[in-house]
């Protein structure tokens, strides 16, 4: 490279100049401004984000808003409400009130973690918490199904109510699985989608089964 032969800096001439960092990002200012804003604004912003994600689950389009700003508030609320509603639904309620709640909690979170690890191991491009977020939000149709089941059971517990409950839970189970598949399967190589969908199917199947076999005392 002949052109580089005459590029040299002599040792005794100090190299000097100015380095300016372009102040394009206003993040320090933003931090201060979100610290100074009233608490109501912070809470409303978070609530709006959670609400937007719920709407995304109801109409699962392939948008990336659910994935980009993940949060775990929605899954926590859904999980706790589902666990509370499923509690006290066994024959001996004074023994099994506690474990029922813990069971549901552990199943949901442990199952979500396992599915996330599985999709990461199969070569997925989605991050750990994004996947947890999606799986948690997609429990929402099943929570709605649980509410409906409880209402139907208030009316009576015969064969007709069982058929109604079966249809409702089945529909919601399909919706949950489709919604989470729409978000998660895209991040996989195309020929391995079935490998990721199966654990999700099993996970929501177990939750649906717990909802369907719930009988209040």
């Amino acid at each position, binding site marked *: 490279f002949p052109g580089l032969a005459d590029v040299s800096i002599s040792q005794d001439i100090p190299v000097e100049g100015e380095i300016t960092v372009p102040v394009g990002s206003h993040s320090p200012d933003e931090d201060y401004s979100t610290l100074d804003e009233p608490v109501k604004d912070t809470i409303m912003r978070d609530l709006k984000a959670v609400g937007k994600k719920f709407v995304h689950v109801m109409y699962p389009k392939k948008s990336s808003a659910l994935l980009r700003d993940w949060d775990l508030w929605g899954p926590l609320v859904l999980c706790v409400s589902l666990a509370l509603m499923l509690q006290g639904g066994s024959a001996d309620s004074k023994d099994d009130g506690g474990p029922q709640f813990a069971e549901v909690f552990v199943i949901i979170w442990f199952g979500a973690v396992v599915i996330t690890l599985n999709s990461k191991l*199969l070569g997925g491009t989605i991050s750990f918490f994004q996947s947890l977020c999606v799986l948690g939000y997609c429990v929402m149709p099943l929570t709605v199904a649980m509410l409906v089941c409880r209402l139907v059971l208030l009316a009576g517990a015969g064969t007709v109510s069982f058929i109604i409950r079966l249809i409702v839970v089945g529909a919601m189970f399909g919706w949950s699985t489709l919604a989470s598949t729409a978000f998660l399967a895209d991040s996989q190589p195309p020929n391995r989608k079935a490998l990721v969908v199966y654990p999700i199917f099993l996970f929501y199947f177990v939750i649906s*089964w717990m909802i369907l*076999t719930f009988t209040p005392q």
Partner: protein
Amino acid sequence: QGGGSAVIDMENMDDTSGSSFEDMGEMHQRMKEEEEEEAEGEAGAGEEEDGEFLGMKGLRGQLGRQVADQMWQVGKRQASRAFSLYANIDILRPYFDVEPVQVRARLLESMIPVKMINFPQKIAGELYGPLMLVFTLVAILLHGMKTSDTIIREGTLMGTAIGTCFGYWLGVSSFMYFLAYLCNAQITMVQMLSLLGYGLFGHCITLFVTYNIHFHSLFYIFWLVVGGLSTLRMVAVLVSRTVGHTQRLILCGTLAALHMLFLLYLHFAYHKVVEGILDTLEGPNMPPFQRVARDIPLVSNAVLNTTAKAIALTL
């Protein structure tokens, strides 16, 4: 950031332009303290060890800070390297590298015993299929327990199901791997896990059918046929990888016994009622199967006795 060298750069000793507020604050504090100490030192005895420029104390302060800094950097680098080495799930990634077609093929193959036992059979060291099968078995067990109104007093249904299935898969695999090591069989731990995991496919099918259709004879037929086929496959693969008659006998006998007994245990302990079994065996006027809530720990001995009786009577 240096390349981890332990040489302290003495040129930077006198660089007092702190790069952060803390450093400037520290520097100010130290200079104030040194001024006070120097004032006291001059007022008191003059036993300074070395020089009087910004003091040996100043130098030691700088030195100490630099050493502490270096040690912090090195420690942080080592910790992050160890973390990325051991807590990396990429260690498991090669075992999950499968296609759906392969999984389906292996599931079907697990029911077909191989004929060629003189040539070591290939076992795919894959963990996706076995893991999914174990979870499916957990789901089926849960279904069985719920439909028979099993109540577990110390623990939860889910905990028991997960504990049983994973305990079987991991525990029996480890035990068989240990036996294989003793008997000089050529099989690795991952292959053992994979083999046993795929053998659970037979269990899943059997339990799925018999938890829903409650005929004892149907269960025994499934137990023999489906359980037997998957056992034969596992046994054949193990035999092809072991040399010597005694070793083959030990390995295969243990595996067959554990596999078949596990299926028996799963069916009887988690679904059928003890009183129903006794009635079927003893009286012609048997009442319909009664579902009674019972305690798992108290009943397990009774179940084992009854099972032994049942087997003895049917043979």
